[in-house]
């Protein structure tokens, strides 16, 4: 089953990472931003697993677990904030408008 070389993993991860980055940059909806973040984190996780496989080292998957936890935490907190902002008059979830903090 081990069909992926580290190189291929990197390729996929890089593309995935870039897509996630583009998503963060282009989407104004905060929910989509969070999703794009998840994609980026997944790309990073993929690299770890690929590298772990390359060195035959379980550390990569340990890192994967950590990243998973991080993603969960970020998503949870992020969604909590989104809900909160939504409740306080930011109905559009637009990250660009209604900025109070600037300049």
């Amino acid at each position, binding site marked *: 089953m081990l069909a992926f070389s580290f190189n291929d993993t990197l390729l996929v991860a890089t593309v995935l990472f870039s897509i996630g980055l583009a998503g963060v940059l282009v989407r104004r909806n905060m929910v989509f931003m969070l999703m794009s973040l998840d994609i*980026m984190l997944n790309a990073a996780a993929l690299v*770890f697993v690929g590298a772990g496989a390359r060195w035959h080292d379980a550390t990569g998957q340990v*890192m994967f677990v950590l990243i998973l936890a991080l993603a969960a935490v970020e998503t949870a907190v992020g969604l909590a904030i989104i809900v909160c902002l939504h409740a306080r008059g930011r109905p559009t979830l637009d990250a660009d408008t209604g900025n109070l*903090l600037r300049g």
Partner: protein
Amino acid sequence: MIGHDIFVPAPLLVVSIGIMVMLAATAWRRSVGRGFLCATGMLLLAITVVGHHTGKVPDGGDSLFVQDRWTACTAILIMFSTLCIMLMSWRDAGVTREDEYPLLLMLGTLGALAMVFSANYMPFFLGLEILGVSIMGLVTFGHRAVPGHEAAMKYLILSGVSSAILLFGIGLAYGVTGSLRFMPPIAAGAVPAALPVAATIMILAGMFFKLSAVPFHMWLPDVMEGAPVPVAAFVAVVSKIAIFSALVRYFGTQNQPPFLDDILCGVIILTIMGGNLMALRQAGFIRLMAYSSIAHMGYLLIAFVCPGRLQSGVVSVYLAAYTVNTLGVFAAMDAFAIPGGPDGRVVAQWKGAFSSRPFLASVMSLMLLSLAGIPPGIGFFAKFGIAAAGVEHQRDLLLCFLIIGSIIGLYYYLNIVRTMMAAPALPSVKLNRQMRPELTVLVIVLSMIVVIGGLFPARAIHPFLPPPVAPSGTGDGATH
């Protein structure tokens, strides 16, 4: 294997136990005061046990943690800062009185300590995230809910991006070296040079984000402005110390890889100029402090790119000076706030402070001048050290920008002092100007540290003059 022989630096242990205790206390009965008390006690304990650890010191490179004088120095700084911030926010009107607050402060401290002690990417990255997530929570503790949440949101998304970049970089490094040791990746075997380079750059980008070096700095002013004053101080101080400590640990006292030189120089110049120029026209005090803190990170990075005999001492002194001064500014700002009156977050509110609140104005001037590098404040000596390191390495370009930046910085710091000296615009409303006693004590202590540190830098900084990394260099012995 699991048990008493695991190597854990004592402060880390104490702080995490403290968190547990606080949780337990909360479960028993919710009480903010008790939370603060518990946290303070645990921090004091942690400070006293700095330098101790459980288990035996691992000799190999596989350890998760490391402990030496450098960690002791930065850990003390971090815990001291948290202590001050605890004191500031104890009865702060600007902070919601919830018992999550001390808990999150402690969690943030734990994260920062983890970063400081880490010898492995894992605790480093986890510490970073613990700190980040705590800050996300902390910034929402202000009474002005929407800015707080907006700040948290911005921080979340941006730190998410930077975390992803950092993780990707770590992944590449891991792929190159097969190890998660906390050091720049060196190509092993057939791996081409480009990959470790890319890994280093991405890790640096992640670190620079936390450090708020210039292209990655934009979150800092917004987050600090959205946060209550003590939290802003926390963001400005604790996370900076932690990340800088890690940065120094990461590269050690050795020269940075040559390919980094141009990038670092560029980042330093951008950071100094960007921070200072952006600070020039700020009306918001916290925002101004945010930009000035960005500029100070630029100065610190100068010392960072000048490794050698002076570096460790210079960096620690500058960090200490920056910490104390920034804390002083924020403490004074906090003390300035009057319930129902000005909260001190806008420079214009300080107009006439020398006549209405001379003590606070004097303290604030001292802190600002020290930040600007004017004697007798400790900041003078710190900046002197930076310049010395720069001259030693003949970083002429950087020194030029150091001077230009300092002059611009002087201008906006002095502008605040000037504002405070101006005649008050309105007859001041009779408000309760009683300062909280703990704040008074804090402000006095910080001022004394600034002055005494400036007058007797050798005595004050002696404990902070360690070799930053394992005692490999021979020249370091002469520094103390």
